[in-house]
């Protein structure tokens, strides 16, 4: 399993704060360095948030996405709707136009996938015999169940996540395209890699912001819908 959340060795001071906050204790110390155990990690990012030495880093996919674009692929962005919270005052038209300047063929909010998925959940609630259904939209929740609470697996809905449903739909509408999910979540990088048929790569808002800056693109503050 490729490492999406890893240690920056030179910064780790062996303080144990990460393992104290890790909800599944998937960190071991050896050679006075914290190591994330990939098989047990649920990619919640708590260790990244609490580390006082900035010794954890998130894998960067920007170069790979640039490569898709440069090799002439049609790359569509599935944009997490929470982008409005990350880019204040910027609406979907404004960010789509900025993404096109980077070379994306187009962008849609992942809400398109959520609509597809919601219909399936409505059907489950209507027809399913289970008295508990756990939604499978969050990859970290799925990993928590799969790796640590497999007894809850029967209750985990066998429904694609909105990201997967949207990317599958984009590939149907634009055959041969590449799909890139853009959102605030590191766990989605693992989900995209594991279910390779739907999402080709994942960029966090931080990676996107850095890319916009490098390319000299400013986002127009415009919430008006056409």
């Amino acid at each position, binding site marked *: 399993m490729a490492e999406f959340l890893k240690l920056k060795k030179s910064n780790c001071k062996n303080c144990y704060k990460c393992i104290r906050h890790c909800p599944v204790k998937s960190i071991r110390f050896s050679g006075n360095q914290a190591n994330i155990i990939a098989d047990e990690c649920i990619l919640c990012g708590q260790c990244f948030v609490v580390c006082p030495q900035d010794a954890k880093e998130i894998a960067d996919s920007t170069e790979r996405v640039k490569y898709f674009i440069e090799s002439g692929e049609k790359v569509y962005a599935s944009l997490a*709707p*929470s982008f409005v*919270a*990350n880019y204040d*005052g910027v609406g979907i038209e404004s960010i789509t136009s900025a993404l096109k300047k980077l070379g994306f063929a187009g962008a849609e909010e992942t809400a398109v996938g959520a609509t597809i998925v919601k219909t399936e959940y409505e059907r489950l609630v209507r027809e399913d015999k289970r008295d508990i259904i756990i939604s499978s939209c969050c990859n970290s929740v799925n990993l928590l169940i799969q790796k640590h609470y497999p007894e809850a697996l029967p209750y985990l809905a066998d429904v694609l996540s909105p990201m997967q449903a949207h990317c599958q739909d984009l590939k149907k509408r634009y055959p041969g395209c590449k799909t890139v999910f853009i959102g*605030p979540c590191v766990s989605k990088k693992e989900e995209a890699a594991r279910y390779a048929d739907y999402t080709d790569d994942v960029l966090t808002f931080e990676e996107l912001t850095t890319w916009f800056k490098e390319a000299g693109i400013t986002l127009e503050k415009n919430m008006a819908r056409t």
Partner: protein
Amino acid sequence: MKVTVCIGSSCHLKGSRRVVEGLQYLIGENNLKDKVELGGTFCMNNCQNGVCVTVDDKSFSVSPDTVEDFFKTEILAKV
């Protein structure tokens, strides 16, 4: 008094977790646990003005930095 904090993705990015923790602490500190019911809700459709908090159906925009002032003026003063 019912206080509801939005825990949707956009409000999460704006620090809803810290708002919830802040309110839990202040409610406890001021012995208001039996007077104030604190709950969470899904997206209230006001993502630009997060973190969205309602106090008995009145809506507010709160941030982790303003939660203490918000508590003093809207909860402590009015409970």
